[in-house]
């Protein structure tokens, strides 16, 4: 059985993979190196979504406080601050103004997602499982630290409409 081909194939593939790793480890190492330290330093005003709470009722204590105090954020032209990634979304007549975009977010950076909509609904950041209510008179806002890598959909939950995809890496 030593002579058997799958072993050789395994060895060959492993070898190729190692060569591949060796040749290209530089860009990979740099991305994985910066995740650990940056996630620890959290700006004081941001909410930390420490635990992913699958329950709709809990995460709103802080988030809805944000939204109710900020009805004037309907016209957001806010300059993104140096560290935060700010994503502004406007929904009119059941569609996303400018179409659903894909936004790149550096791993560990704070993110603010703001939604203005002409309907009563709920914004859901998948994966991080954050929710915020939206209505024609009150914009929704969710703040979190992008400490889970991956691609995450932000959805207008009731309508099933994709608002934006966050690519955290």
């Amino acid at each position, binding site marked *: 059985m030593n002579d058997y081909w799958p072993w050789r194939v395994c060895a060959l593939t492993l070898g190729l993979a190692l060569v591949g790793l060796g040749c290209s480890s530089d860009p990979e190492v740099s*991305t994985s190196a910066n995740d650990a330290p940056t996630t620890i330093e959290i700006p004081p005003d941001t909410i930390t979504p420490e635990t992913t709470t699958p329950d709709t009722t809990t995460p709103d204590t802080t988030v809805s406080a944000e939204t109710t105090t900020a009805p004037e954020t309907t016209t957001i032209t806010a300059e993104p601050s140096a560290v935060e990634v700010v994503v502004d979304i406007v929904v009119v007549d059941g569609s996303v103004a400018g179409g659903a975009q894909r936004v790149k977010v550096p791993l560990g950076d704070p993110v603010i997602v703001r939604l203005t909509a002409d309907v009563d609904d709920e914004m859901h950041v*998948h994966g991080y499982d954050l929710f915020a209510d939206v209505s024609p008179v009150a914009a929704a806002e969710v703040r979190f630290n992008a400490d889970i*890598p991956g691609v995450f959909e932000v959805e207008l939950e*009731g309508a099933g409409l994709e608002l934006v995809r966050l690519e955290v890496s």
Partner: protein
Amino acid sequence: MTHHGRRRLAVGVVLVAWLVLTSAAPASAHGVGGRADLPLPLWLFTYGAGGALVASFVALRVLWPTPRLRDAAPGRELSPALDRMRLPALLVGRALGIASLGLVLVAAWWGSDDPAANLAPVAVYVVFWVGFQLLAAVLGPVWQLVNPFDTIAAAIERVQRPHGGHGMSDRRIRPADPGHWSAAVLLFSFVWLELAYYDSASPTALALWLTAYLAAVVAGTFRWGRGWLGHGEGFTALFDLLAHLSPLHVEAGRLRLRPPFSGLSTYHTRQGTAALILVVLGSTSFDGLTRTELWADVVGDRTGWAQTTVSTVGLVLVISLMTAVYLAAMSMMARNVDRDRAELGATFLPSLIPIVLAYTLAHYFSLLIFEGQGAYALLSDPFGRGWDLFGTVDHSIDYLAVSVDTIAFVQAGAIVFGHIVGVVAAHDRAVELFPRRLAESSQYPLLGVMVLYTVGGLALLLGG
């Protein structure tokens, strides 16, 4: 695809669509899982695609001139102690299988409407669908130990023949067995629900589909007998297909160990095996396609049934495209070697099995690792009633359990490795069937198919 098969497929689609249409309140979310994989880095794509190409041509020149797999496939017997474990394992496994099916049905029908608070979606889409594909590929005939469909069929058989007789007088004349066609249609209904239907995570939609599926299984058993289940029911057929990659297999009641992948040489193709394989390959590819920006543009602002319609067309198109590539290659090969296309299909289809496994691993590995943890928590509260049966309900998904680099390597590695195993298996079949010269030239079309599937599969992982 034959005319007959196409009609069955159409009937299946319409049936399932109608069933779901009559219920489904608009709820939340698509599919299970809140996280999708990052795009594969371009350098990894280049390495993978390049490696697959080089390996293909090296294989043609370097590999053995006489077949080896068939001789290796029987393997050797394992300890008789393991065979004595078989009956107790079967009893426990079958009981667990029926209990799990019942639990999922109850959760889907009567549990919480919130997909995140209901055990059924994650249990079906992640633990069962992805988990058993991988288990079968590694451990072989494990599905037979739990298969609840076969337990139901056994009960039906018992009712039909209460005295346990099986003489000629008992045997009704059965209609012609549909081979793998029925499995392909049944699996299509599942992948349609998972990937095309807009509210696939909805427990109600899942309950309807599962009930319809069970009805189809029962009907099939009545029509074609219990023996039909082993190849005619979608999941059983797929898990059996993948079990041929495993080093473990059962022959004449004995558990045997064989070199991995050698079982490919013993796979028994039937009518519709190509459809079965292509439905699975096509669905996985479509899942990759839906994560691209290209697809996001196609779907645009469509939601609900408008989105489902677009997705259904997309799913069917991807499966058709992969089928067209396969059929074209087989026609070309048939011309090259002057043989019948159906005969060649029967010979070379098993070499696509490693690619089925590779696609599943590449697309759903992270889903299993991450969302599988969700099942662990929901086991304590399967119906979303606020229970905590096993004290695991507070377990939240650790999305950092496996790094993104590892995921990317598993994805690219699986696809390239699956390609290489497929090429080698095809080569082995070719030298068995043809004289050396012809064996080599016969391989070019099939190599083309595999390279297209592999590079295409990798390209879909680029995701951007």
